[in-house]
């Protein structure tokens, strides 16, 4: 769910108010958008993708996180590079290569391949039955 609108980073462009498919934000009186209806958030990360200032953070959980969670700690999220990480991954923003241009996933196997041997990093024909 959406947890953070950074007052420091926000450039008050209202883009998140416009693009959120669930109309979660309201325009704030001082220009910084307000999370007005968090319960309506569907954790789709789209607001983050569209935020040109990397001022938003969506925690990956479908329920709100506790107030003391690191997922609500802006300094921690900035330091670990998680703030703005979705926009970076999909290559949105000036000077970046669109992620779509390099999105070549693996050819999915028809049946699960053997388990990887952690020592070699390669798949081996050694099925573990328990661990």
């Amino acid at each position, binding site marked *: 769910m959406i947890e953070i609108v950074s007052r420091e980073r926000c450039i008050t462009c209202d883009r998140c*108010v*416009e*693009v*959120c*498919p*669930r*109309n979660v934000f309201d325009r704030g009186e001082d220009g910084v958008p307000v999370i007005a209806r968090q319960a*309506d958030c*569907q*954790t*789709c*990360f*789209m607001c983050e*993708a*569209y935020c040109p200032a990397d001022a938003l953070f969506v*925690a*990956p*959980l*479908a*329920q709100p996180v506790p107030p003391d969670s690191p*997922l609500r700690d802006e300094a921690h999220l900035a330091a670990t590079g*998680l703030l703005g*990480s*979705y926009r970076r*991954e*999909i290559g*949105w923003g000036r000077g970046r290569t*669109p*992620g*779509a*241009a*390099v*999105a*070549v*996933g*693996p050819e*999915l*196997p028809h049946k*699960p*391949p*053997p*388990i*990887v041997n*952690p020592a070699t*990093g*390669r*798949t081996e024909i050694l099925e*573990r*039955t*328990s*661990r």
Partner: protein
Amino acid sequence: MTDSLDLTTDVLVIGGGPAATWAALKAAQAGADVVLADKGYCGTSGAAASAGTGIWYVHPDPLEREKAMASREALGGYLADRRWMARVLDQTYDGVNELATAGRYPFPVVDGRPLRRGVQGPEYMRRMRIMVRRAGVRILDHSPVTELLTAADGSVAGAAGHRLQTDEPYRVRAGAVVLATGGCAFLSGTLGCHVNTGDGHLMAAELGAELSGMEFSNAYAIAPEFTSLTKTAYYSYATFYREDGSVLEGAGSQRGRSVIARTLLREKVYCVLDRADAATQAKMRLGQPNFFLTFDRLGIDPFTQRFPITLLLEGTVRGTGGIRVVSDDCATSVPGLYVAGDAATRELICGGFTGGGSHNAAWAISSGSWAGEGAARYAARLGPAAARRTVTGAGEAGLRPTGTARPAETHRDVVAAVQAEVLPYDKNYLRHADRLTPALATLHDIWREVRSGLHGAGADAVRTRQAAAMTAHARWMYTAALARPETRGMHKREDFPAQDPAWRHRLLVGGLDEIWIRPDEVAPVGPEEWASLGRPGFERVTERAYARAAS
């Protein structure tokens, strides 16, 4: 509240995902004036925008096309129609190429050749919005439709709804309407699907439209527990474990998903993607970056660390049931009403097995294009007289109660009560008459309460209508599920575990206060029928069958 918005147009498209944008684009290219009204923001709302998807994009080589058509036929219980598969493959090929050239979608290039078999949702829908705007379509964002408008002769004549950000009602009078409102995932929490509550199905049924394949409505997707990230493809690399660390035998992302469901009824299930080697892992990150958002943010390495998983209902988003299509241009049985994307049945190309991923994406492009063009032609035939018609709001449940109105807030209780019947694995996934019958009876009771008392106005009406739509959807689903005493496609009956050749036909369902069900007169066209009939002659055969069915 300000003066309400009142627009007149040739074609109104309801929805804002892939099918809606293709419909709007093609209607505008055909010369129609077009309004697109989306419940959220056209470009981010719906199942596709926040995900990434494969596309059923196959080169027009006869052998490749034959292989593509045969690929899901058996899984779908041979309920698909090869004539539709062939035309979807043609239309999708053209549409994706248009997205690449006119839309400038940056498809990857491998060995000097563009790879066009998949798209990333955010980029795809951003480009579609640009194309739609360039074509001159007027977009109304955050403008959920709450009811269709009808003319005196019963044909559709527009829609009314509420603009959420300005808190004002609005109305669009139109010559023709395309419903591209998506499937119904019952607010289960599956990725991007909170807007997919089956609103279009309810509105179509209020005008007498038929639905098809509603028994194929129990797709469940794997997600890490407590998250919305239902992206199942990469679980092909998973091993599933019990709480005690032992391997859950028979569990798998494809054929073994029911083992996971059965186990989740009793205990937690864990998973590690321990079958992806280093090279595969790197490719996975490039292919679906949002799959890893969850893990990165929770500090989990999914390739080495166990994490708990759950199954979330994707209903008719990934199931194949929906509003019945009665002609090549995706008309419904209601004059002037067209249907596209997940709101429509996808049995025509998938039968009873999931249309998820590539097939649904192809269907959205194709059915959207045909519905848009069909609606434009219909509106052109009506001409300026369309705007002079006297129109009436057709909305009933949740808008115009038959008894004493109760507070709109009761919509929450309705949703919770419906979810209690459709989300549990032992009712909807692992189906048995002993559990379906009482569930359906409960749903009928909920409907009676909804019909008599549920009432909302303004923005509240959006929520009461959603609750009504989900209730109706669940009743069609279980009526069809009980009417098919066999296992076929995704519809698995524990009390009838085998496929019965006598039931190789599609099932139509409809009605609101009284639900009816009957076999479809139009027979599926499998490989044998396709071979024996031959393409040119067969086209006429199906057209006659559709005409009979519509009369």
